[in-house]
């Protein structure tokens, strides 16, 4: 436990001395404030064009930011030789991975908190109508997105030999999960018989953190009916308070499995190296 904290603390320090973190912070703030100003006359409440475009913006920006910062942090351990140094200490690989995850998560969540803090403050000063539940939902949505994509980032970082490889894979994963997702799915699922499409779609959606979190927020914003008759039972389920728990469970499972995968990769590397 002390090891985890130690590594997390180290990660936090490195993270906040990383200029990349601040450039993303600036980017996130600029875009979210810009969006807020465009819609200064519209209430931010429920599922509307305002919340819809905020949702899209966050889906573009946060996963990319998380993938970059997360994967670079791991590759730099290798590139700087600090992992080789750490390996000589009696620190377990799991402690290392968990410490990395916790530290990076804290850095990213601080960036998100800063952005939302600014957003909340500004909307208050401008006298905008920003419903509290919508605000907190978006905060939770962004945090969820960061935590889920961070596990992906760690996997990418573990598999990449250097920073450039990590960058390439990160962009590819981001494009696949956020931009290309419907295109690939529609093309792929079109080959299946009609009755298989819906189950396949549901399983695949569970595997894509961007879609998973987006749909959760759309449903919680009250927009679940727009997903149509095929999913109304799911929507009803998620709309209830128990649905949030279920969603948290799925996310936790996601994070745990991915961290185990990262652990396995590093453990293998350690035993070989």
């Amino acid at each position: 436990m002390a090891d985890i904290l130690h590594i997390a603390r180290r990660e936090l320090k490195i993270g906040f001395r990383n200029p990349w973190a601040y450039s993303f912070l600036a980017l996130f703030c600029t875009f979210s404030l810009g969006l807020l100003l465009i819609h200064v006359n519209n209430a931010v409440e429920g599922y509307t064009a305002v919340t819809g475009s905020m949702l899209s913006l966050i889906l573009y920006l946060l996963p990319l930011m998380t993938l970059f910062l997360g994967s670079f942090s791991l590759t730099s351990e290798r590139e700087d030789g600090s992992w080789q140094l750490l390996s000589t200490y009696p620190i377990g690989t799991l402690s290392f991975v968990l410490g990395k995850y916790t530290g990076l998560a804290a850095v990213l969540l601080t960036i998100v908190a800063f952005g939302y803090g600014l957003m909340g403050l500004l909307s208050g000063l401008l006298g905008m109508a920003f419903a509290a539940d919508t605000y907190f939902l978006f905060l939770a949505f962004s945090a969820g997105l960061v935590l889920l994509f961070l596990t992906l980032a760690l996997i990418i970082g573990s598999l990449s030999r250097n920073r450039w490889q990590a960058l390439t894979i990160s962009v590819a994963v981001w494009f696949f999960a956020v931009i290309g997702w419907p295109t690939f799915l529609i093309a792929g699922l079109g080959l299946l018989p009609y009755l298989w499409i819906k189950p396949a779609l549901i399983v695949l959606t569970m595997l894509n953190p961007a879609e998973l979190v987006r749909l959760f927020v759309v449903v919680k914003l009250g927009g679940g009916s727009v997903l149509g008759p095929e999913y109304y039972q799911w929507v009803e389920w998620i709309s209830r308070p128990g649905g949030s728990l279920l969603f948290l469970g799925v996310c936790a499972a996601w994070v745990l499995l991915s961290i185990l995968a990262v652990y396995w990769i590093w453990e293998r590397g350690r035993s070989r190296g």
Partner: protein
Amino acid sequence: MVAMSLVILAACGQKKYEPVAINEDVDICVVCNMQVKDDAFATQLTTKDGKNYKFDDIGCMNEWKKSNGTEQIGMDYVRDYNDKSWVEFSKASYVYDASLRTPMAYGVISFKDKAAAEAFVKEQALGTVLTAGELASHEWKQNKDMMNMDMQSGEGHMEEHSSEEGTHSEEKDM
């Protein structure tokens, strides 16, 4: 060739198109958008690739068949007027009368056998018994206008005419 047709036959033999229960929360008529009530007027069909369509009136199902054809239909079901059990469209008997109220006012109701249909006609003292085959040549007129001839009825008929023409032209487009 023979082998192929055998395969197709086998495939067809395996496939069963069971009627799907009506869910009033989400089921709407594919044609007219009205909620499908879980009542004796509900009908449904399943296409060969497994898509299920529900209708609130036999007339709406007929509209769907007119615009989409019947080749792709795996099975179509109507309901018995008395006990709401699902009956295959081709095996059911039908009663038509303009004064029968159905959700889209087509005035056609379905029965599981001819005896039940005849009993209904006898009891109500109105209506004509039709088979599924005879329904094909049925004119499917919606009762938009009751028989009482007030001063509006002439105008009403004209409007009805033009709206029917509109429907036909659209069908050609689709």
